[in-house]
Every structure is written in C-alpha cells, then in structure tokens.
C-alpha cells in the first residue's frame, strides 16, 4: 500500500482507522503499512489523541421546555381556521384605514350608553299656603251648600202632593 500521507490518497482510511471505523479488510492492509511508516504511525497516534479530546467536550442538556416552546410556535404558525378563510378577503381590504375611526366611534357610543344619567329632581313646587281663615270659609261654604240642598229637597217633598 502507498503511504496515504505522501500520496494524499486514502487519507480517509487513516481518519477512519484512527476512529476505529475502518472496515476490517482495509484495516488489516493499513495496519501493515502503519507498522512500517513512522509518519502514519505518528498521524494515527495524534489523531486518536484529538479524537479523545473531542470526546471530552459534552454539550449542555437541552432545556426541559424545548418541546413545549416548539409546539407553541407551531400552533402560532398553524393555518387559519375555516372561519378565518371566509373572512380572509376582508383582511386585505381597503377599509383598514377606517378601523381607528370606527374604533373611536364605538368607544364614544359605548361611553354614551354606559354613562349613568344624572337624574335631576326638579325642585318641589312650593305648596300654596293655606290660611286658617280660608279653611274656615270653605267649611262655612260647604255647610251652606249642604243646608241649601236639604232645604230644596224638603221643599220638593212638600210641593209634590199639590202637583199630584
């Protein structure tokens, strides 16, 4: 076998052999060469050292909430529902600039509706002041009327037989 380092051919054999990944057939051939070639022997030795140094470099554990965060992002990215499909044409419509105005109108309307009406109680009209004399007079008038009524009724009773 030609020296992989000198010929720059089959360098992958050296790498795989150092990593213990070279298939058995090739490994036997390369092993024979390495035993005779100090350059390749040195390569294999130092490459195994690098391999071992790289083994020590262990990354940190993946966060426990990795899946949860991912599924959250997937949910956000999911296609819209059929309802959204129906209203989708409206999403890009011309009316967008009118949204702030409509929102302002809505807020004013809601404010007016929700406003507690201030009940203004009109001041009570001052009651007419009744003087005792007026009461007395009224009572007298009523008694007089009553008497007149009684008198007229008795007069009618007395005159009735004559007319009959």
């Amino acid at each position, binding site marked *: 076998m030609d020296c992989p380092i000198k010929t720059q051919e089959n360098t992958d054999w050296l790498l795989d052999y150092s990593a213990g990944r070279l298939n058995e057939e090739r490994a036997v051939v390369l092993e024979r060469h390495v035993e005779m070639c100090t350059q390749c022997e040195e390569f294999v030795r130092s490459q195994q050292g*690098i391999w071992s140094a790289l083994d020590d*470099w262990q990354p940190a554990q993946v966060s426990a909430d*990795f899946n949860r965060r991912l599924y959250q992002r997937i949910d956000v990215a999911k296609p819209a529902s059929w309802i959204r499909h129906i209203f989708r044409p409206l999403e890009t419509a011309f009316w967008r600039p009118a949204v702030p105005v409509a929102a302002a109108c809505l807020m004013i309307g809601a404010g007016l509706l929700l406003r507690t009406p201030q009940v203004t109680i009109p001041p009570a009209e001052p009651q007419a002041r009744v003087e005792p004399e007026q009461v007395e007079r009224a009572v007298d008038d009523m008694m007089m009327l009553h008497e007149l009524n009684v008198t007229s009724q008795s007069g009618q009773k007395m005159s009735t037989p004559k007319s009959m």
Partner: protein
Amino acid sequence: MQQRVKEVMGASVALDCDAELMLRVKDGDGASFGLLLGKYRASVNHFLYRMVQDQAVSEELAQEVFLRVYRSRETYEPTAKFTTWLYRIATHLALNWLRDEKNERSQQRLDETSKDAPARELADRSPSVEQRLLRQVNVDEVRQAVAALPDKQRAAVLMHKYDEMEYSQIAKVLSCSESAVKSLLFRAYETLRVRLAHMA
C-alpha cells in the same frame, strides 16, 4: 406508504424509517412528528451548540430547524435520507448565524468562559478538583480550537465525529463532492492536531 418511499428513493436505497415517519407527518400524523422530534432533538441541539457555542442561540436555531421541518411537511419528498435533509437545514441556519454574528463581540464571548459551561467547583476540596480543573481547561481549548476552524470545516468535523455520518452524507449536507469533504476533514483535523498537539 413503504411502496411510495421505495418508488421515490429507488430500490438501491434502503428504506429510511425516518422518511416514512416524515411522510406520515405529511399525511397529517402529528404523533410521527413527535417521534422524529424525540429522536433528533438532542443530536440537532448538540450539533448546533458545537457550531455556534452558545446554548441559548443553539436552542433557538434548533427550534427553527424543527419548525421548518414541520412547515415543509406538505412539500416533503424522500429524495434523500431524512437526516441529510434535517442536517442540511441545521447547517444552513448555523452557517447563516455564524456569518451574521462574526464580529468582535462573538470573539470576546469565545475568550470568556462560556455561561453554559459546567461551573468550576472551586469550593470543592476533594482530591480530584485539580483533575477536573485541568479537564475543564482542556475542554475550553478544544472548544476554541474547533471554533477557530473555518465554518464548513467545523460543520464537517462535527458531523463526522459526533454524528458519525458517512462522507457521502456530509457531502450532501454541505452540497459538495465526497472528495471535497475528505479534503475538508483532513485539513480540519490537521489544524486541530497542530493546535492541540500538547493534549495528544
């Protein structure tokens, strides 16, 4: 469904059960997406963490990877291995992030002790404290050496070393030839051997 996968991928390619799961996702099976997420969440996160070397950023990018997988379900076709497609998305996002963030600030962050690196237990007086400190220093050196690699070399090394990907698959992820990947890897490991010679 298996027949459908075989038709698309051809008889020479073994049935990729992940691709089959992805086709189920395409048909609206959310549980299959959950299975793929459970299977690759850690490896994608770790790959991205080693690429960008920032825990918060790598998780954010990993979320984006799976979000894109989910969003692309309707147009998904199993023309390659599922992992090739998955890592292509992840590598693309990482390389973009690195390109955007390659400035003085990110360099300073590399020099500092990473926030998410395991805390150094200085209060611990046990006999192994020295060994642990030494190991931490070594890990920091490895991190910095990997970070110093060109972006594509770094991606290739990480996929080769930690995800045990074949050269052909790395080539598909990076959209280059298999020989280019071998060359990338050989140069990358050479750089690492020089830089970390004292550790070898």
